[in-house]
């Protein structure tokens, strides 16, 4: 999962506190999708899961 900067993999200091937390939630939702997906090789998850 690509993030927005090496020093803050689960954040984005450019955003305000609420928006940054929403971004972190979005990332972890994407992580749940990733660990629930069958993969056979290195796979980039850069989009948001289709619900």
């Amino acid at each position: 999962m690509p993030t927005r900067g090496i020093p803050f993999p689960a954040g984005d200091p450019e955003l305000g506190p609420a928006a940054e937390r929403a971004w972190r939630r979005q990332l972890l939702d994407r992580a749940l999708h990733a660990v629930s997906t069958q993969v056979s090789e290195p796979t980039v998850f850069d989009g948001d899961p289709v619900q």
Partner: protein
Amino acid sequence: MRVVHYVNQFFAGIGGEDSAGSGPELRDGATGPGRKLASLLGDEHEIIATAVCGDDYAAAHAEFAAELVSGARERGAEMILAGPAFTSGRYGMACARIAAAASEAGLPALACMHPDNPGLGEAAGTTVVQSGLTARQMKDSLERFAAAALKVAAGEELTAQDGRIGPVARANRLADHNAAERAVALVITRLGGDRDATEIPLPDFDSVTPAAPIDDAAQALFALVTEGGFVPVGNPDRLESARATKWVRYSLDGLDSVDEGAFMSVHGGFSTQWANADPNRILPLDVAREMERDGAIGRLHGEVLATTGNGTTVADARRFGMEWAAELRQQNIQAAILTAT
């Protein structure tokens, strides 16, 4: 051949960690695993002495190797063997340095350790053969070690089939044909169906079979792990900021988030100002707890496993990964979220 065999303080019977500071010495005859090694080497070779040094001393005094090799030569050594060191890092490093010093001095030499031993990186210019993972595999390891040592004694080249591991020095030489003609010949070889032929062996990247996906995140146990240098403020375990040789674990029990002033990053590869202002940017505990509460995940593991990924050797990184995986499996964790910097 007259052989000198190197072991650490533990295998020499001097003692464990409490004796790791003991200095280099040479003892007559074979000691510890050297006795079995001597019998495997047969009648044509004799372990005339055992070189010994404490692991801490050897790690801190690189010159111990040259000292022991020169002492061994004075006793008439014709070959130096070191190990097996298994995955013991300081011992492996000492074996690599002894063998390298012997090779440098023109003596045939061979060290023995596991491919994950961080000491392997010190083995440039010498030869290393693979041992098992722990001393439980002493018998197999010594058999392979002895077989390889006999080849080295006979002046033969060791190959991967003999269990050869570690850095191999490549040297320039002139080929019979120019590179263009060799490229054309290689095209013909390739078109003939040989898919392996090459002059530059490619790095052997690990191929890992991905774990099966989890069925239901809402029922699963999740762990948060990170290589972002995540520690409590004050860094009580002195996690390294670069070239980490260890990992650390901290309890997350009772915490709803990781807050400024309680946790920080010691990572030396980037500015930690953003991580220190809000450690959830390195370890997303606040949102993970929220997901635990609203049922998106089953439960969050009570500990974070952390290290620093900055100039870390592949061997160390591999070891951390193996240990983390074992740790998480034992705790019945089904998924881990690793924040990488």
